[in-house]
């Protein structure tokens, strides 16, 4: 059973600087396909830095790599990922008549992916 966590999309310095170089550059692609996860959550799920995880919402799914954060920085159950094509995959298009899709605090199912499995629907290779 995949666990349900809260994904926060956002900006980061590196995302900003690599954006200037171009969204098709390797650094930007790398940054926007890495999800930050609480260190305890990762241990429980048997994940190490750079392990692949599948994130799934009713809107779509993506496979990204994960990176650990201490509990004081990122509470258990909360994920952070810089905006990019991967986070787009997870966003629903409904805006509740506001124009704004929900792109922070998405409820996502998190599931480890075996290294030899081929990517499904995602953008991370």
């Amino acid at each position, binding site marked *: 059973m995949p666990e349900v966590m*809260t994904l*926060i*999309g*956002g*900006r*980061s*310095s590196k995302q*900003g*600087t*690599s*954006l*200037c*170089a*171009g*969204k*098709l550059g390797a650094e930007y692609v790398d940054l926007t396909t890495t999800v930050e996860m609480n260190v305890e959550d990762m241990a429980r799920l048997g994940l190490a830095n750079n392990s692949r995880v599948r994130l799934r919402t009713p*809107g*779509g799914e993506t496979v990204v790599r994960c990176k650990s954060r201490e509990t*004081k*920085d*990122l*509470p258990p159950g*909360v994920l*952070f990922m810089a*905006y*990019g*094509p991967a*986070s*787009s*995959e997870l*966003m*629903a*298009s*409904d*805006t*509740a*008549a*506001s*124009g*704004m*899709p*929900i*792109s*922070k*605090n998405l409820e996502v199912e998190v599931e480890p992916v075996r290294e030899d499995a081929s990517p499904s629907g995602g953008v991370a290779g």
Partner: protein
Amino acid sequence: MSENTRVVENATCTFCGCVCDDMVLTVDLEHKRITKAENACVLGKAWFREHGVEARPAALIGGREATVEDAIEEAAQILATARFPIIYGLSDTTCEAQRVAVSIGDMIGGTVDTTTSVCHGPSGIAFQGVGESTASLGEIKNRADMVVFWGGNPAEAHPRLFTRYAVTAKGLYTPNGRKDRTVVLVDVRRTASTPVADIFIQVKPRTDFEVLWALRALVRGRKVDPSIERRTGVSLAVLEDLVARMKSCRYGALLFGMGLTMNRGRHFNSGALLALATDLNEFAHWVAKPVRGHGNVTGADNVVSWQTGFPFGVNFSRGFPRFNPGEFTTVDTLSRGDADAALIIASDPASNFPKAAIEHLRHIPVITLDPKVTHTSQLARVAFTTATYGINVTGTVYRMDDVPITLRPAFDSPYPSDQEILTGIRDRVRALLGGNRLPPAVSLPGASA
């Protein structure tokens, strides 16, 4: 210094909404690049470093190199024949270009929307409902003795907001800068911004509205149940302490980010924060300000507002501007599959919109104007390479606090500006349509007499 080097003082960085205008740029004219950007933050340094001139065709039609003239003709044909054309983006270009873009929307009876709709659009909606007490950033620098950041990470997204304007900045009544201020940060997680705060308040995700509403109640002297802590993760004691500080400061500022607008509650969150600032004015001078992202997104809001009366999500199909977020905002229009052509200026929706919206973009003729190759330019029918604003072209840019600044370009680009391309498209569309397209006669509100 070689004769192929020039220094541009008082240049402006347009990466983020801080629009810092104190850059000192060293320009290598021979290689057309900026080798040094004094005073720039880490984001600004990358902005200046990475915007050299790349050898790319000035225009592509269907992925093939084309002349700018042919591309303008193709773009004009697309826009003049479309039944539901949309114009989107505009936050990373000059006001001069924005004004032309809106005039095209009016001429063809299309929709004009900006990246505001997926940024602080909800704050714009909240503003329409409750108003706002606000200030230019200099008032915060010179007067604010209490600053509250809510739902944002300026250290990474707006680095100089802290140093130039709001935290360490020294001013008339804040001669000691940081020492003269109480700094509070409210967020769902610790970020690079957290260490700047005297008080960090960590709220549970999706409970910003509850925390803001509880603060409003406390400011007005109402009782708040201690169970607020279970719901939001913030104890009543912390809230009471915050309110006491807010009521007793001299000049307070609430600066809020997309942690409020992109989240459950959207415009209700922004509205609650704006209302809190208004309420606090019974006790002390308080202002609030959305921290805006792209360099000239605030200019886009201003231009679209003065030309139409509404800040974003404006449709001209009935012959006059109509505003309806959820209907004329781009995520909605595209996701519904409504638009039959799109003119995208200085924006990359194909990289950050929900996938249903991106999918529709693949099925309609898209025209892009961008200095860089983007996901959107790659799927475009017509893609223009344009000069970069602030680096190659002059024009006007509005800082996040509505202060307009004139850009000082560093070196020439071989590519035309957004304004030039848009003006070319507009003139050609006008010729094709014989002036502004008029909608079929309908009865108009307010024109009953």
